[in-house]
């Protein structure tokens, strides 16, 4: 039997992606039956994060400080700027590569059919950043979707007009995969982007 409060907890947990009524119920009962300290800590950190986390004023990623750790770091190369769609992409690149430059997070992509234009993804801030003159290569790491491509193209024009080098991450066949199972558009991109050995 669920009381009103437990019911509310279950309902609240459902705001998480991929959590349906059944898993929300399991989570709620787990927290209440077996892990009260965990529940208290979760509640405290959640409310603190929701209160304090904002956007880094330089790269727009999520951060509780005015300047995120990456932008504040003295060790990174400020001449390289990698443009990504979301904060989670920053993590993915940091974990997978030895990239030493800085980031700019669009928090979205251009999508004319959804009414999202260049002004909605912070490109005026990016323009200012480029005009400061420190950046000499912009790496476009937006998603390989049509919207991501259109966004990359739009930004590349912006970058090239300032006589700065713009590069795009390569599209290709995933490592460990088999050609037979690669979808046709990926394969066609991989084919047209082939490199001399």
């Amino acid at each position: 039997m669920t009381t009103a409060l437990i019911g509310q907890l279950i309902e609240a947990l459902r705001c998480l992606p991929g959590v349906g009524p059944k898993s929300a119920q399991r989570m709620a009962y787990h927290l209440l039956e077996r892990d009260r300290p965990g529940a208290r800590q979760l509640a405290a950190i959640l409310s603190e994060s929701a209160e304090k986390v904002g956007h880094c004023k330089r790269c727009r990623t999520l951060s509780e400080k005015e300047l995120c750790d990456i932008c504040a770091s003295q060790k990174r190369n400020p001449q390289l700027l990698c443009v990504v769609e979301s904060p989670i992409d920053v993590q993915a690149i940091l974990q997978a590569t030895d990239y030493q430059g800085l980031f700019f997070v669009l928090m979205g992509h251009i999508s004319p059919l959804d009414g999202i234009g260049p002004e909605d993804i912070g490109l005026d801030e990016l323009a200012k950043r480029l005009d400061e003159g420190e950046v000499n290569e912009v790496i476009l790491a937006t998603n390989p979707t049509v919207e991501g491509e259109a966004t990359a193209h739009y930004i590349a024009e912006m970058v090239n007009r300032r006589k700065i080098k713009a590069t795009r991450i390569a599209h290709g066949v995933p490592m460990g995969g088999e050609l037979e199972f690669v979808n046709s558009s990926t394969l066609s991109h991989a084919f047209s982007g082939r490199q001399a050995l």
Partner: protein
Amino acid sequence: MNRQHPHKHISLQPSYILHTRPYRDSSLLLEIFCRDHGRIGLVARGARSSKPRFAGLLQPFIPILLSWHGQGELATLRSAEPGGPAPLLAGDRLYSAFYLNELLLRLLQRADPHTRLFDAYITVLSALAESKKEEESLRHFEQVLLQEIGYGLILDHDVETGEAIDTRLQYTYILDRGPVLWQKNTQQGIIIQGKTLQAIAANHYPDSETRRQAKHLMRSALAVHLGGRPLKSRELYRKQRFL
């Protein structure tokens, strides 16, 4: 069973995705344009999970074969298979391709078949990918689109006199009627050469002047049906010039 919406199974239908939108936790809502049924709305369940179904195929501008079942407004996607080589659209061509999809979404009713328009869509996508005859195929697509929604342009005769268009003369195209011979004090309509009208009809543009006039006429003719809202994809073009 509901008579107006019989339970339908459609199998391997040549289609293109016009637009996708996230739906619930892990699904996508698709607007598709397919050969035999026109514009259709579909739900693709599990298309956004960590192991997505239909991986990579539910993207605009890629020819795909879709199978679905269901009744009423929104059917459920069962399978998606590649339908041929994907045209490689780069740069400004992507904006033009978005423009096509935006036109189709704004102007087509759901579940009206438009086979000719489907063919014109395939042609214009491959023209954009190969950067060959792009303008011709864009104009042709717009012309077929207008015809298919029931507002085709009149290109062969003067609507006032009924006489055939003379390529040496100048006309005024009045949008809700058609071309009439140009007269000095005409206020309304779009000034257009007889040779441009013929060029549109033949889909062959001999010079930049006819191309420019044809583009202007199409833009005005489409604007009537788009209402007050401008096309977002066209704004992208315009903004890029002032970066």
